[in-house]
């Protein structure tokens, strides 16, 4: 067992973990943060996407011990004071989810993408940027619309 200390959504957690434990299971099963989903075993689907020190990662491919001393942001940590994050709001308004299983990963990937893209991603950029996140319900059409809408809000807020 290894002792780790991870900041998750602004809160510090200390825990003993098996060295082979994946970050996603540490979050889901040790901390009870079940918002991050698991959809595959080959790092393909992106359902487990979250932010590790501000960068998007697939948490099924990161060991819990690798997050030692780092900041983790999950879907549970992006709305504040009951206010949805603009990306969450945009997904809702544009009907960018159906079953919702890909949604937490998709929203986290979208946040990472837009923050990196600085607010002027084209539709093509967004589509390419989301290549690692699969959705079987929406055909991506409304996901793209939601991200475009959230992005314009980001940049106008930033301006």
């Amino acid at each position, binding site marked *: 067992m290894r002792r780790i200390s991870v900041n998750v959504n602004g809160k510090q957690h200390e825990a003993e973990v*098996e060295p*082979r*434990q994946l970050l996603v*299971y540490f979050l*889901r*099963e040790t901390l009870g*943060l*079940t*918002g*991050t*989903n*698991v*959809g*595959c*075993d*080959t*790092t*393909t*689907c992106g*359902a487990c996407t979250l932010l590790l020190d501000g960068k998007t990662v697939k948490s099924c491919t990161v060991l819990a011990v690798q997050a030692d001393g780092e900041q983790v942001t*999950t*879907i*549970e940590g992006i*709305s504040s004071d009951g206010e*949805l994050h603009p990306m*969450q709001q945009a*997904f*809702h*308004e544009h*009907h960018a*989810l*159906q*079953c*919702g*299983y*890909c*949604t*937490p990963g998709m*929203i986290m990937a979208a946040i990472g993408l837009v923050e990196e893209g600085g607010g002027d991603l084209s*539709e093509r950029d*967004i*589509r*390419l940027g*989301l*290549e*690692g*996140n*699969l*959705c*079987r*319900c*929406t*055909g*991506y*059409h*409304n*996901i*793209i*619309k939601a991200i475009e809408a959230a992005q314009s809000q980001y940049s106008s807020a930033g301006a």
Partner: protein
Amino acid sequence: MTQTEERAQRYVGGGLLRKEDPELITGQASYVDDITIPGMLWVGVVRSPIAHARLGGVEVAAARSMPGIVEAYSGADLASEWAGGLPCAWPVTEDIKMPTHWPVVQDKARYAGDAVAVVVGESRAQVKDAMEAVEVEYEPLDPVVTMEEALAEGATKVHDDFDDNETYVWKLANGEVDQTFADAEVTIAERYYHPRLIPNAIEPRGVVVAPIAAQGEYTLYTATQIPHILRTTLALTVNIPENKLRVIAPDVGGGFGSKLNVYAEEAICLALARKLGRPVKWIEERSENYLATIHGRDVIQEMELAATQEGKITGVRVKLTADMGAYLQLVTPGIPVLGAFLYAGVYDAQVYSFECVGVFTNKTPTDAYRGAGRPEATYAIERAIETLARKVGKDPVEIRRLNFIEPFDKPRPVAAGLEFDSGNYRAGFDKALDLADYDGLRAEQERRRNEGGVKQLGIGLSTYIEMCGLAPSQVLGSLRYGAGGWETATIRCHPTGKVTVITGTSPHGQGHVTTWSQITADALGVSPDDVEVLHGDTAVSPMGMDTYGSRSLSVGGTALYYAAEKIRNKVKKVAAHELEVSEEDLEWSEGKFQVRGAPDKAKSVPDIAFCLWHCHNLPPDTEPGLEETYVFDPPNFTYPSGAHVAVVEVDTETGLVELTKYVAVDDCGTQINPTIVEGQIHGGVAQGVAEGMFEEAIYDESGNLTTSHMGYYRVPSAAELPSFILDSTVTPSTTNPLGVKGIGEAGTIASPPAVVNAVIDALAPLGVTDIDMPTTPERVYNAIQSAKGASA
């Protein structure tokens, strides 16, 4: 529409934002894997890596002694748990071969993935380690991989109890078919293969069972589309009284038919919870899902058309060979039957025959996958009509216009023996061509052809008709299906003015909570926010028949419509009493019962719900409370239709196909929530385009699934797809008072032939007239090379 009626329809027809979303976008949803119960054990299923093998010993002792392991069982150890095998509810013919399907096999493994042993332990990781320690002696047998092999003389048998691998032969014929073909001026005969597909709902399956051992009571949480059907069938399989079994479908992460089944792991977890008296959990891994969850399609089609010299279709003759896989799952044999009546599409044929041969192979069982039988039918007719066009020298637009069934708004019989409910196929087609700028596209295509560049443009058309709203119970009976096709709805009006709606449907992404709230809000004059919709729990909902086959709105929504009518009838009686007028003096206006001519004298549903709660002054013979249930058994199917246009760019040097434009015009009848309708079409089109262009489950000659994980099987990402251009026509269904037809499967049904026709169209100048799905670069490249070879 009068002004009052207009105002009464405040929510139906509007794109209300989904009430389901808040928990899903904040990570507060509860999927099966999110459920933890104190004392819960983990279950792992050991699967045969070999497609066909007799089992020697299954040795579990070593696994049992591993750290954290509570128990390990072979198939023989669990044999006494089952009152019967896993059910198949659709024996399509009297003499169908119905193999016994044990949840854990005892004699031989019949596909790579067949369950051979089970391990139970304290943690996910410990169980995984111990599964490696189970020793199984496999004596390999010849695998039967393709349908041709399975049907060959002297083939190895998948099931020793039967004479051969032919599961059944199902036939349908109307009119003098052979004569029509013999006399026809023109005939065409084509052979298509519809590849095997892996559904890939992004949430894999999972099961949690919580027992109350002392009471013999069990709560089964499972990622399913069919909690009600599961309760009935599992009660029989595992021998638990049905009224002691509660099945809950919590949040479910997509289904597409793959969760419309009774699976081994559901039976296994129930049996283990009973045996051990502890809660158990099994979560499917994705690679396991590729083996253990049903596949779709895998059908060989021999499609023939008879026509006049001009190209008018007179007859359709179809023969299918359909791969069942190793066992018959819940509705495996019936899938081809769901398409059997639709091989003439929206075209007016006089005679019709259909025959399907089901075949056992050593592969994962097939069953319902989005569209189930109807994508197959649509693909065949929409490919064939293009071949006919080439043969009679017409273009793809002309040939379709020549053959469309004329617009109709009353039920109309068709050659296959169905009665279509209503339709205007030409209107949708014209609209789709307009939206796509068909003439402009043809001009651009011409320009590129003349220039002779590498990237050629292809334009593919497809029209479709589907049969959904499953289904009139009597018809299901005549097709030998084991259950009915009705659906239920209950409306409970609380004294505080809030309304609870309980439906027997079981949504898993379709937004029933929102749509049902809209219908209820308009029917009862309340706000959708005051309506709570409950589903997916057999202890909460009345009887139900669950969600599949684009049935939920047209059957379950109609039940809701009639339940609301019952509520209003009761409210009217009490309102008249309260207002001291006769019922005839009341009219339903602006969401209330108003006294005719004195609109300020009115009672709302919440007003009367309160009266029916305190019951201080009710009219005689009035039962207290305001709660009604309606069970709707539809009189007919519904028949959504539409026309799609796909535009592709084909790189004639590499064979790479890019989808550059996609237009869909669908007619699902009346739309309750157009935003949700569009979402269903987007997702359906993406799935069907994937079928046409990317996806195929491939087995090697030993029966190993070579597309064995998500990295090998090409579920498309956003990068491979364009945005879609949608529009609709509205031809209200005559089957139900809402006028709705269903939209869950339309996109998946229409799109495969649209993209394949587009690829063939792009390559037509090279002489390419045929290409199989999916249109991978390799396949397109080879088609180009062999066409060049032929013309050289």
